């Protein structure tokens, strides 16, 4: 279990988190659901260690490796698809192993034919698929997805969601999934935290499987918060 204990964080005079506590279950997809600007990304970044806290502590992440699917693909446009994934794997695996891993993930995201394409030559959806393949190819223990399907049309969102679940089922990593899209939250997560207010509060903690027979109910709950 990853635990954020009594975390406080402020930016200038803006208090985003005050004595904030939250748990993330290992090998489960936990969704941080809430409006833009509430502090979802900050919470995820605190877990990933890229945002320092003012007070409090994070436990359960010792020696953990992280991978991240950001809102925008964050790929190196001077490298091709293959090199972009290779870039994050270089310090972790030997070349032969890297080639094997990259090829298998490129196949999974259906981009094998595009392995030598520069990033600028890809569509937004394709670039985000590379970002997803990169995140799964990296041997992370914790995967953070920060609104990864934002800006994609509904068809692409659907494709990306299935791809994500397909890849997650293979390695079942701990996932922190940030979204303010009800459908995405319900379709992809095991646990959903609803966040609100400033400093941020947890309004609700929903276990999705409890609503397996009535998804509309959980959606209504999320929409009504």
């Amino acid at each position: 279990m990853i635990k954020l204990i009594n975390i406080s964080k402020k930016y200038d005079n803006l208090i985003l988190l005050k004595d904030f506590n939250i748990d993330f279950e290992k090998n489960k997809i936990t969704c941080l659901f809430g409006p833009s600007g509430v502090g979802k990304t900050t919470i995820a970044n605190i877990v990933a260690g890229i945002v320092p806290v003012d007070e409090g502590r994070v436990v359960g992440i010792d020696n953990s490796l992280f991978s991240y699917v950001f809102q925008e693909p964050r790929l190196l446009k001077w490298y091709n698809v293959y090199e972009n994934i290779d870039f994050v794997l270089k310090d972790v695996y030997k070349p032969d192993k890297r080639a094997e891993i990259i090829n298998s993930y490129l196949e999974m995201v259906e981009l094998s034919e595009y392995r030598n394409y520069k990033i600028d030559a890809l569509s937004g959806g394709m670039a985000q698929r590379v970002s997803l393949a990169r995140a799964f190819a990296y041997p992370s223990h914790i995967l953070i997805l920060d609104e990864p399907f934002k800006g994609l049309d509904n068809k692409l969102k659907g494709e990306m969601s299935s791809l994500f679940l397909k890849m997650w089922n293979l390695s079942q990593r701990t996932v922190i999934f940030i979204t303010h899209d009800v459908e995405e939250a319900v379709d992809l997560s095991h646990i959903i935290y609803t966040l609100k207010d400033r400093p941020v509060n947890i309004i609700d903690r929903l276990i999705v499987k409890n609503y397996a027979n009535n998804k509309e109910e959980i959606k209504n709950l999320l929409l009504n918060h």
Partner: protein
Amino acid sequence: MMNSILRNKNKLLIILFWIFVWEILSLIIAQEIYLPSPHAAFSSLMNLLISKDTYITIYYSTYRTLTGFFLSCVFGIFLGIISGIHKTVYNLLNPLIVIIRTIPVMSIIIIAIMWFKDTNVPIFVAFLMCFPIIWTNTVSGILSTDVKLLQMCEVYKIKKSRIISSVYFYSSLTYIKAGMISALGIGWKVTSAAEVLSLPKYSIGRFLYDSKVYLEIPDLFAWTIIIVSLSFLFESLLKTIFKFGDKYD
């Protein structure tokens, strides 16, 4: 193809127009010592181009310019990258760069004459004049690196050396290339100026100086045409190398 022919035709017409203006002015002034006619200048140029010494001179001046330029690229890019990443190094080097930028070229040349032997003076001066341009451009390039990419590197625990070679370097490449093109042009100018004062045996500057002493003004113009042509040629060569690099990257 057709467009390129038309463009070249236009360029040629523009050059011819200015040669015509030059001719008219020289006719009005009518004193070769002030302004030789294009005909006199081009005759001198033809005479120079059939002499072996001219090519030896061009070789040595080119060697000096390119050596100064090359050194400024190596140091400018290396120190520029470090300065862009580490604020302390930037704060340490910036006053020095500002001083180098503001010191008149002539003062630097005279100081260099005291320090080095004649042939190395132009190299040092070219280096000192080109270095700040390349350093400044490299620093700007590094600072323009997308913070989001750096954050991605942090998450994936990428080694610092690879962040420098794969992220910072490529992010600043456009700036570095632009800096190198401006620096090369300046390199030619200051090398010639330094040669005029330091007078190495084979140097365009020595011939410029001689044409002043012996009042061979058409020769002065002819050597100037050679410098401008060399500068233009090497700038085009550098741009072609960059284009080739982009295409096959």
